[in-house]
């Protein structure tokens, strides 16, 4: 029985093997580095001789005066980014799906993927220009409707929103691609049948297209939970200023500034470990919830 089973399944193990070995070496190999989170690491002393310091690195982090505001900013910004980063690409994929002219569709698809390739340094400079309260095009446009100029990048009320909107702007086209791929997998026969039943396009979208995309959506939504403590270092670092520390300082920028004075590898490891813990917790609980409640395996 087991022998037979093994015989049937060993080719599958064999297929996994190369990836398994590589992951063991290059992903699990460096895991020993997590001990740094519990050491007072100095590059000169190295792994072995750096003294243990228990939970000091964690204590230090949590005793920083602004830490809870920073954690709050991080979660707030990243949660909004996660939600917007799901809704916008899905919507755009659905809208593109409604376009009948293929040439137009391809052009739009290509153009919306362009901003992904520009770095935040470049986009940061461009954003300062277009969002300027005195000369920026956005405020000039709003002025037409009688809106008073808004200092988007210098106001704590607007700054997180600007981060989310500009992040979506940069990435939605790229993220749309995977949903477009999911759309191609939907059986056209289903649509034909629906039309015969007299379903409107809206109903088709609701009952065929969206369910067809659900596995991918659920998967990507679950995986994005792993980023709940990553609010986007490059972006924030290039856009924030002392004026918006209250709403824009995030864990990664804080750790970066803490590390300028010295290479704070221990602190960075401790923060990384904490982030990993949160990610594992969130992702595994959604995995088991989906399995228990809907008998569905997300991955």
């Amino acid at each position, binding site marked *: 029985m087991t022998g037979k*089973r093994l015989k049937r*399944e060993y080719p*599958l*193990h064999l*297929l*996994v093997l*190369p*990836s398994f070995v590589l*992951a063991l070496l*290059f*992903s*699990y190999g*460096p*895991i*020993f*580095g*997590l001990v*740094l989170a519990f050491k007072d690491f100095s590059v000169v002393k190295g792994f072995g001789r750096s003294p243990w310091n228990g939970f000091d690195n964690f204590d230090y982090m949590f005793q920083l005066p602004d830490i809870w505001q920073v954690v709050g900013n991080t979660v707030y910004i990243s949660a909004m980014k996660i939600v917007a980063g799901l809704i916008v690409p899905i919507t*755009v994929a659905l*809208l593109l799906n*409604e*376009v*009948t002219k293929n040439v*137009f569709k*391809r*052009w*739009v698809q*290509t*153009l919306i*993927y*362009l*901003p992904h390739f*520009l770095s935040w*340094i*470049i986009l940061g400079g*461009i954003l300062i220009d277009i969002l300027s309260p005195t000369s920026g095009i956005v405020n000039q446009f709003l002025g037409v409707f009688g809106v008073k100029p808004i200092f988007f990048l210098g106001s704590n009320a607007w700054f997180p929103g600007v981060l989310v909107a500009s992040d979506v*702007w940069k990435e939605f*086209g*790229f993220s749309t691609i995977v949903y*477009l*791929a*999911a759309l*191609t*997998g939907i*059986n*056209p*026969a289903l649509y*034909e049948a629906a039309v015969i039943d007299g379903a409107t*396009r809206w109903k*088709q979208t609701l009952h065929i297209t969206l369910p067809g995309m659900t596995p991918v959506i659920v*998967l990507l939504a679950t995986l994005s939970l792993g980023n709940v403590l990553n609010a986007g270092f490059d972006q924030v670092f*290039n856009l924030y200023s002392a004026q918006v520390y209250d709403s824009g300082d995030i864990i990664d920028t804080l750790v970066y500034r803490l590390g300028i004075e010295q290479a704070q*590898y221990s602190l*960075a490891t401790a923060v*990384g470990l904490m982030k*990993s813990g949160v*990610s*594992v917790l969130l992702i595994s609980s959604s995995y088991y919830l989906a399995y228990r409640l809907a008998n569905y*395996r997300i*991955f």
Partner: protein
Amino acid sequence: MVHSSTLPGRLFRAANAFFLLALALLCLFPLVNVLAVSFSSSTAASAGMVKLWPVGFNLASYRFVLQKPEFMRALFISLERVSLGTAVNMLLTVTLAYPLAKESVKFRGRTFYVWFFVLTMLVSGGLIPWYMVIKSAGLLDSIWALILPGAVNVYNAVLLLNFFRGLPKELEEAAFVDGAGHWTILWRIFVPLSMPALATLILFTMVGHWNSWFDGMILMNTPEHYPLQSYLQTVVISHDLSLVTMSDASSLAEVSDRTMKSAQIFLAALPILCVYPFLQRFFIKGVVLGSVKE
């Protein structure tokens, strides 16, 4: 999808087209800005005068960048990295996704494996041990240092296993009855049926390899072995103006030259920008239908 020709239907399509067009233009804007700056005179660019059209049109920056031997050399290394890296990544992604797409009943180790791999996405040991592992594997200063450590892309494999799962079971079962093995089924049935998904992942992988710069900088022993983005990193980073000395000041004028930066950014993005339009032809609907039809 079947479209109606009713008035509301046409209205919707017009509004939709208009909206998508506006969205596309919004996304085109930053690249046009970069392009306009790259063709402008450097004083106009550093005065922030260039918006969507070059001011003081000239080609000097392109001439300068393309004459640099470093640029071309780095470009070739990038191309080597992308082709080699994408091939290795995709091979592993496909061979990993196939067994993991099986039901737990059919492949008992599945759930263990899935978590084994997913955990690698969530936990990492940090920079120093990562470097030391690669160093002791003897990979430093070789192109394989840029390929092997990231060769297993779990995110892509998990996406692909989701697509594999969506394929009709009948095909696989029929092939089994005909005596085909896993290897044949994978390459003859799963892969051809998943072209849109594979095209997407190929794109993601290529872009990922193209854009990464940190590993090149850390793992290569000389800038002559840098891929393009590692080489460009020093051009693109912002400078700490509090530590400038006289010997940096003259070069500061040079590195703050935006036309040069923009030309390099544009040239560096160009090859990879061209990949997507070519991959788009794999996004054809109804592949599955065609092959399942009796």
